[in-house]
């Protein structure tokens, strides 16, 4: 590959597991950093349990589909860092690295002798990013999170749903994805600062705390105006405003109607389209797209206040029309006329039917030694000089142990063999994968 990489010659020691931390280092890897994932099969969480192993394969440490997509662009070093020998080896690695990332509960790495102060002794300008549930500072630092818990405690769950129903929340760990974003953003920011000043630092990132600023306008409405979110008509489902409740902004842009999801033909589970009109002019364009039906010419729909007041009737009428069209056809008819509309898309829709994502090469296939040929997700940004790319499939567990121990750290092959024999590079009582036997030849 002739193109330079943005993070050429940057090495990351990656202690992260499950989703948020690995999602962070995946992107650093896509920018060309060498990501060395430190793993240990006895307490692995991320490869197992797997609910994304193809039906045709045995579930084992190397066959999780979601692990593959989350851990592209990395190498795997199997190392028992809770042994004195393993600890020495990982410090030797950190001494020649730029960034350490970990997403253990607070204090865990400190207890292992791998806290920030300790690592400054072996690498004074290390950029050390901790991604924990509640952060290392504050009285609840020992509390733990998964995405849904961070979302609940921070207010993100509450702002999703229909009025007078339980919160609908987020149907996935949004804060694992987004916590990963903040991990990568923090590592890059710390790295930039190091390159400019020569100084590293510790970045104490909390998944729960990082969720809170995502509610900014709702929080300011409370701290400035004293208006809380426990109120009639909030959250307003997919609408900007719930009919029959006081007119207030609900923190998703201008308060307008139509602003909703509508069923489309043939009415299956994900046959929905969303339509939004930001002005009277856009509304009139929608009326034209709908064929200028008589009901739409009523004066009560001519103004934004009127459309908000008669939103129930408006939405019923629009849906009667939207049910006659498939969601992609409806989208195209609206958009060519200058009306805001897009289909609700399942994963299958995005991978198979979205013409924009296809054009942008969002899903390209890569061959994985255990999983075979499958599509993986590309980057959402195109850099003209240093493009991000997926250049490695996810590592098999311990796949690069020899390369790193002998090639990078300069241990002899005999020392590698000794490390396998004494349980430093793989548990002595655990069956080895065939590629480990090969590496010991």
């Amino acid at each position, binding site marked *: 590959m002739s193109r330079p990489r*943005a993070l050429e010659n940057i090495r990351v020691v990656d202690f992260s597991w499950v989703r948020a931390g690995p999602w962070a280092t995946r992107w650093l890897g896509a920018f060309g950093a060498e990501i060395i994932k430190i793993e240990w099969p006895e307490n692995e969480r991320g490869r197992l349990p797997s609910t*994304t192993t193809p039906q045709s394969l045995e579930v084992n440490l190397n066959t999780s*589909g979601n692990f593959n997509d989350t851990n592209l662009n990395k190498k795997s070093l199997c190392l028992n860092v809770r042994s004195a020998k393993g600890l020495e080896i990982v410090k030797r690695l950190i001494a020649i690295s730029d960034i350490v990332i970990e997403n253990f509960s607070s204090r865990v790495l400190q207890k292992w002798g791998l806290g920030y102060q300790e690592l400054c002794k072996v690498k004074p300008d290390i950029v050390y990013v901790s991604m924990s549930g509640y952060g290392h500072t*504050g009285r*609840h630092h020992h*509390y*733990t999170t*998964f995405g849904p818990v961070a979302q609940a*405690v*921070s*207010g*993100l769950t509450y*702002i*999703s749903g229909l009025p007078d*129903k*339980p919160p*609908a*929340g*987020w*149907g996935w760990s949004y804060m694992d*994805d987004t916590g990963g974003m903040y991990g990568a*953003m*923090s590592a*890059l*920011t*710390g790295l*930039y*600062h190091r390159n400019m000043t020569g100084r590293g630092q510790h*970045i104490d990132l*909390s998944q729960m705390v990082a969720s809170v600023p*995502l509610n900014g306008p*709702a929080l*300011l409405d409370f701290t400035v*105006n004293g208006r809380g979110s*426990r109120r009639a008509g909030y959250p307003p489902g*997919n609408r900007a405003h719930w009919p029959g409740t006081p007119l*207030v902004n609900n*923190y*998703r842009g*201008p308060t307008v109607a139509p602003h909703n*999801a509508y069923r489309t033909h043939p009415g299956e589970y994900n046959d*929905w389209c*969303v339509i939004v009109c930001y002005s009277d002019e856009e509304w009139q364009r929608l009326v034209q797209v709908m064929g200028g039906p008589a009901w739409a010419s009523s004066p009560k729909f001519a103004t934004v206040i009127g459309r908000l007041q008669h939103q129930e009737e408006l939405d019923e009428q629009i849906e009667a029309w939207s049910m006659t069209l498939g969601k992609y056809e409806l989208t195209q008819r609206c958009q060519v006329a200058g009306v805001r509309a*897009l289909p*609700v*898309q*399942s*994963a299958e*829709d*995005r991978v198979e039917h979205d013409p*924009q*994502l296809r054009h*942008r090469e969002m*899903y390209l296939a890569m061959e994985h030694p255990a999983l075979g040929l499958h599509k993986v*997700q590309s980057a*959402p*940004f*195109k850099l*003209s*000089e240093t493009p991000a790319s997926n250049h490695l499939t996810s590592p098999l567990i311990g796949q690069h142990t020899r390369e790193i121990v002998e090639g990078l750290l300069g241990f002899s092959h005999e020392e590698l063999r000794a490390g396998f024999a004494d349980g430093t590079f793989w548990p002595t009582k655990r069956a080895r994968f065939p590629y480990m036997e090969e590496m010991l030849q």
Partner: protein
Amino acid sequence: MSEAQPLPSPLAGLRILELADETGQFCGKLLGDLGADVVKIEPPGGERNRHVGPFLDDIPHPERSLSFWYYNTSKRCITLSLETADGRGLFRRLAATSDVILETFRPGFLASLGLDYDSLSLQNPRMIMCSLTPFGQTGPWRDYLSSDLLHMAAGGEMASSGYDQADAPNAPPIAPGGGNAWHMGGHFAYMAIMAALVHRTVAGQGQYIDTSIHEACALTTEAAIANYIYRGEVVRRQTGRHHAAGPTPRTQFRAKDGSYVCALVGGRLNPKYIGELADLLDSYGMAGDLRDPKYKDPAVIAANTSHIIDDLVANFIASLPAEEVYHAAQDRGFTWGVVRAPEALLDDAHLHDRGFWKEVEHPELGRSFVYPGEAAIYNGSPWRISRRAPLIGEHNIEIFGDELGLSRGELSILAENRVI
């Protein structure tokens, strides 16, 4: 003041020009709160997001939009019409000494003014330009209109979020609120800009970045894509919990005070967990039959999953205020949380310990207001809000006059001609 100077923030010394609407202002805020000098360039009269509510005291005014306030902290503002020749000339002068230009115009607009990356980089090859647009610069949808709701639909967020049939029959897929499509796009754009900045510290060269919000959203549904690619499964929506190929036990329980608790129990039930759960429930005298030795047998646990979750855990939570369940459970090592309305965060002692809430002064109002602060604590170069959102053209004199050397007379003429 004799105290030592505060540590500089990590992006101190960087000059960013922000030409951004609602889609990109959050990315600009991140850059500004992390220390860059972000100069927001608005059209004369102000940017349209100044008209998005809620407003201070519910009085609509372009200087009173709380949404604008929130997303434009730590920025300065100049007004400038790029559709005038004078405006373009001034913009070129600013671009010549800037590190990053963040822009959210429709594809092709800056090129039509001769202000695209290829033109501007001739005079400043170190400059990085990031376009952050709904669909990117290419492809069949590149000129499509969008909104936050539209992105949550096409990006897959809605297909994953909604209700169990029992909770809300025939409910539509639900788009989580708060404008998170712009957050998703902003996070990825920030990341790409930082990668380009790091590269520039080594190579000395800038570059152009084309970021797509649709792609950012499509990347932000955790394992939904993997479920489809590796197993052909399309996930179903469930109330307050993960999408899944098949139904999973509920995780959201109503507490005594009407709030909900997120209690992740299903899928975790084993004899050890049952013992810990019995301890938790027993501390309130509500362990029921959980101490029965029969629960040493995983098969018995499996057969009683519904009893444990829907009777014992649900009744326990229903008997207590949600905050009490949250702290009692977390203190015993349970990864449970309270479902809070955002305003409840103001009472969170942990956030106060972290110095999370920030008093931000609005000197023109003679008041200060509490803002949410930073996602992370940087021990060597702080992430912090440096100032409230700028007023319209607040820094015109500072930047056009003091920096570019325009006279007051010239500024007056430019204002009269709607250039600034």
